[in-house]
Structure formats: structure tokens, C-alpha cells
């Protein structure tokens, strides 16, 4: 499969290495000299699996995902290696990266309302993603869009496709974002705190939806969150980050049952548990 031909349909092989990130360092210039917001991060995502990246605000988890997309904010530079299906992504031109974005690697963001353009119908916003990579008629794109909305379980999709983002609830908007990401059948889906802006019941629905869709499509996923409880539900592998640096990684089971790094233990202890109501809720000491 060549990245140069975006029409190629890739069939993910379970267990094959989809994404391999090695020694990724993201640097931003500041008035006080360059600052590394991601320091020497290495991880891999297998086809069909989910990697959870956990860390507090400023740990560099979002910058890692933006580096994969080639969408670092102005001034940011990434060094190291990011290979998707064996092809190096770093150092590609914006033009080449445009074919990767959406088609090979899709992203779902934290705040679904502000992530959708308020001036256009959700249908148009999904259609344009599909047509940017597959061309074809608007009619065809519209059918794909309605299908995608149905897949994320939006009732009455044929009518809702012409509605504007503000006419949907928070959870519905995130479903729309997921539909937008999945209509192109990407190899890798990066979900950056997709449930943080949602309440707990809606969060559970979205997590379930993501898991179902992943089972159906075999898409590899990077799930970025600050919430260890969420990670335990979705991820097979976990990477813990702090201040841009790799703290600990391993299978979810390892991390949860036998954390080695003191920071991971602190994170786990900070999880609220309804065991002893009088137990002190532990905070993170920086």
C-alpha cells in the first residue's frame, strides 16, 4: 500500500504494526529559548488495538497527536520518526500530509461544539471530508454521510444531516465528529479527550460506540485522556506521560495491577474509589 495513492483501500492486518513512533521530540521556540513539549517519546500502535496515552494537562499528549497529523501550531517542530504502515510521516510536505490527514489518520477532538463550524450543516462538513479524498458526486457523498450518521446511531439521519451543529446535544455532536472521522475508513483514529466535555452517561455511550466501531472496522486507535478510569475501559496498551516525557508504558493490565513508576502509582491513587467513603482522596504532588 502506497501513501501516494489515497484511493488504495488498506485492509488492516490484526496485530501488525500500524504506527511506530520513535524518539519523537516536539520543540517550540520561546523568548527563553527552545522548549521541548514532547521529549523523546517512543510507542507503537498495532492494527485494531487501542493505545491509551495518559497524562495531566501540559504533559504533551495532545502535541504528540498533532505531530502525527502534521498539524503542530505555528513554530513547533518535530524530530525523531513517525512511521505509518512503515512509511515515514515526518518531513513530508503539507501537500503530502493532506492526503494522510482524514484518509489514513483521522482525529476526534475534545470539544465537539467548537470543533464543528457553526455556519455549515453537519452533513456538508462530513461530505467535504469524504469528497476531499474520494471525489465523486455530492449525491454519493451525501449518501455516505447519511450512512455514517446512521453508523454512529443518530436517529433520523436522513433529516438530521441538514441540521446545524448547535441543533445537536453534546453527545450527538461527538457522534457527528466520529462519523466524520470514520466515513473515510482511516487506518488510525486519534481520539483526543473525546469524552472530557461530556457527562458520565454520555461518555459511557461514546466509549461503547468507539469500541463497537473499532471492532467493525479494525481501525487502530490512540485514545488520549487524563482519566485513567476511561483508559482502563478502552485501551490494550497504555503510555503514561508527564511534562512531555515518557513515564511508563506497558499493557493496560501491567500498568493498572503493577505500576512501576511512582507517578503512575500516584495517578492510580488519585482515582476516586467507592470502597471506603472516609478514605482520604489523594491528590497529585508535582
Amino acid at each position: 500500500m502506497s501513501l501516494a495513492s489515497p484511493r488504495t483501500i488498506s485492509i488492516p492486518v490484526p496485530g501488525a504494526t500500524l504506527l511506530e513512533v520513535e524518539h519523537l521530540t516536539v520543540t517550540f521556540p520561546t523568548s527563553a529559548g527552545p522548549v521541548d513539549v514532547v521529549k523523546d517519546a517512543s510507542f507503537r500502535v498495532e492494527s485494531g488495538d487501542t493505545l491509551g496515552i495518559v497524562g495531566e494537562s501540559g504533559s504533551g499528549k495532545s502535541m504528540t497527536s498533532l505531530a502525527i497529523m502534521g498539524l503542530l501550531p505555528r513554530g513547533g517542530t518535530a524530530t525523531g520518526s513517525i512511521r505509518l504502515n512503515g512509511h515515514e510521516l515526518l518531513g513530508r510536505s503539507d501537500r503530502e500530509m493532506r492526503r494522510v490527514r482524514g484518509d489514513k489518520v483521522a482525529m476526534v477532538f475534545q470539544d465537539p461544539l467548537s470543533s464543528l463550524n457553526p455556519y455549515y450543516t453537519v452533513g456538508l462538513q462530513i461530505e467535504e471530508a469524504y469528497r476531499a479524498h474520494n471525489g465523486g458526486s455530492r449525491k454519493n457523498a451525501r449518501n455516505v454521510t447519511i450512512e455514517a450518521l446512521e453508523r454512529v446511531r443518530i436517529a433520523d439521519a436522513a433529516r438530521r444531516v441538514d441540521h446545524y451543529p448547535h441543533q445537536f446535544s453534546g453527545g450527538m455532536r461527538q457522534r457527528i465528529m466520529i462519523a466524520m472521522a470514520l466515513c473515510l475508513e482511516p487506518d488510525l483514529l486519534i481520539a483526543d479527550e473525546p469524552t472530557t466535555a461530556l457527562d458520565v452517561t454520555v461518555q459511557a455511550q461514546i466509549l461503547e460506540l468507539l469500541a463497537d466501531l473499532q471492532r467493525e472496522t479494525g481501525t487502530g486507535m490512540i485514545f488520549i485522556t487524563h482519566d485513567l478510569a476511561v483508559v482502563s475501559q478502552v485501551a490494550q496498551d497504555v503510555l503514561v506521560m508527564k511534562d512531555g516525557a515518557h513515564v511508563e508504558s506497558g499493557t493496560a493490565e501491567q500498568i493498572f495491577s503493577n505500576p512501576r513508576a511512582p507517578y503512575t502509582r500516584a495517578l492510580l491513587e488519585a482515582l476516586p474509589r467507592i470502597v471506603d467513603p472516609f478514605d482520604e482522596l489523594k491528590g497529585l504532588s508535582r
Partner: protein
Amino acid sequence: MTLVILRRVLAAAGVLLLISLFTFMIFFWLSPDPAVQICGKTCTPERIDQIREQLGVNLPFWQQYWQFLSGIFTGRTYGEGAAAIECAAPCLGFSFQTNESVTDMIVARMPVSVTLAIGAAVLWLLAGIGGGLLSAVKQGTGWDKAVMISALAGISLPNYFVALLLQYLLVVQLRWLPFPQSVTFAEDPLLWFQSYLMPWLVLAFGYAAMYSRIVRTNVIDTLGQNFMRTAKAKGLDAPVVLRRHALRPSLTPVVTLFGMDFAGLLGGALITETVFGLNGVGKLTADSIAKNDQPVIMGVTLLAAALVVVANMVVDVAYTYLDPRVRVKSA
């Protein structure tokens, strides 16, 4: 939708009524006696009373206001008998200095102001939006600085100064343009265009400066929005991202501004018209103020207010089409 428009129209009518009342009050209490003005040097108290009666200024305030208001809808007659003066509806008053109805005076000068406003608007929208967009996309570069420095000049240099400078450069020094003359388009299209070019440029400069700064701010603001990141993450081409996703949110607020500014100009560009000797509503205003011709001043004041109120209404209705969030709330 119809209900929304109807509500807006009623509100606008109410606002106009209040404006007419306030304007009338100001001229009723704060201005000198028009009868004394008209009477001139060879004046007797009897003559003044006579004129007062003819003008109707001897009546109490409410009665005069009512006469003025009903005159707009049904026309009115000043004085009685053979000396009576007819003022047909819509009668905004009668100037005893020029012996013309205010409505006729305004109507005669409207075409110049409209021509001036439309030409300038085209120029300033092109320059303002283009410049703002350029400096936002090329933020921090030489382009950005060039546009912003020009904008600073446009905002800070007074209209009359730019007008005189331009006249000196283009007409006197370089001789690129003939001295502006008042010709109609039908008489001499080229001279007509050449005569309007400088006023258009002068007027557009100030507005373009303001618009380019506003557009720049809006575009930069929009470019930082999360949905722009989404658009890029979809793999859209950069020009599509800009055109489809950044332009509309950035330019919709400009519609409000444009409606107000354009309506304001239809009510006369006082300084520009005076400097270039264009016989528009603005020059009429300036002349009437100089001569203290109150009925005319009041007429143009009311016209300017009415234009802004109507523009406001049009913008509000247009907004319900331009911004889907407004549309659904009001429906």
C-alpha cells in the same frame, strides 16, 4: 419569519417616531426664532407676529409637532389665502430662505450622495476585506505591516486633508485628473468618472482602513478556532479551508458594520462633499447649518436617522439568513 420581520418593522417605526420627537424638541427649544431671521432688517413686531402665524410657530409645542408629523404623511399648507404655500406629502418642512420644500431639496441632491456612497462602498469593501485578509493570512510579515500602516494612516488622517493632498497631487502636480466638475453620467461618462474618482478614493480610504483592521482581527480570531483544526485534520486543501471555513465566520459581522456605514453615507458625506464641491445631501446639510436654515437641518437629520434605522432593520433580517444560529432561534 414573517412575524420576525413584522416585529422589526414595528420596532423601527417606534424608534423613528421617538427620533422625530427628540429632533423636533431640540429645534423647538434651542434654536433662534425663525420669524426674526426671515423678517430681516426692516422689521416690526407686527410683521414678526404675522410671519410667526404664517409659519405656525406661534402654536404650542404639541400642535406644531403634530403638524410636522402629519405633514410627512398628508402634506401641509403654510399660511392662508393667496400667500399660502403648498407643501406636498411627504412634507419634511419648508425652507423660507430658499422658498423650496425640504423634501424637494433633499430629493434633488440624493443622486450625488448615492453615487458617492455606492462608488466608495465598492472600493472600501474590496480594499478593506482584501487588505484585512492579506494581513491576517500573512500575519507578522511585511505584507501585514504594510497593510496595517496604511490602515493607521487611513484612520488617523482627516478626510479633508487626504482630499486636499490628493487634489494637489493628482490634479495640480501630476495632472492625471481634470479638476472635478459636476457633470452627469449621461453628459460625459469619462469626466463623470474622473470627477467622482477622488471623492470615492478619499471616502473609501478611511472606511477601508477601519474595515481592514476589523477583518484582520476577525480572520485571525477565526483561524484560531477549533473548527479550523478540524477542517485541516480532514485533509482539506489549504485554500478550501480558508475560503469555506474562515471567510464566512469572519465576514458575517462585517455585514452589520457595512449596513450602518453605508446608510450613514446615503444621508450625506458632509466633509467630502463640501471639499469637492459635490452638491449632495452632505453639502446641503453644511450649507443649511451655515445659513441656519432650520427646516432643512431638521429634514436631513431625520433622513439620516431614518436611513440608519432602516439599515439596522435590513441587517437584522439579513443576519437571520447569514448566521444559522440566529435563524433557528428566531424561527
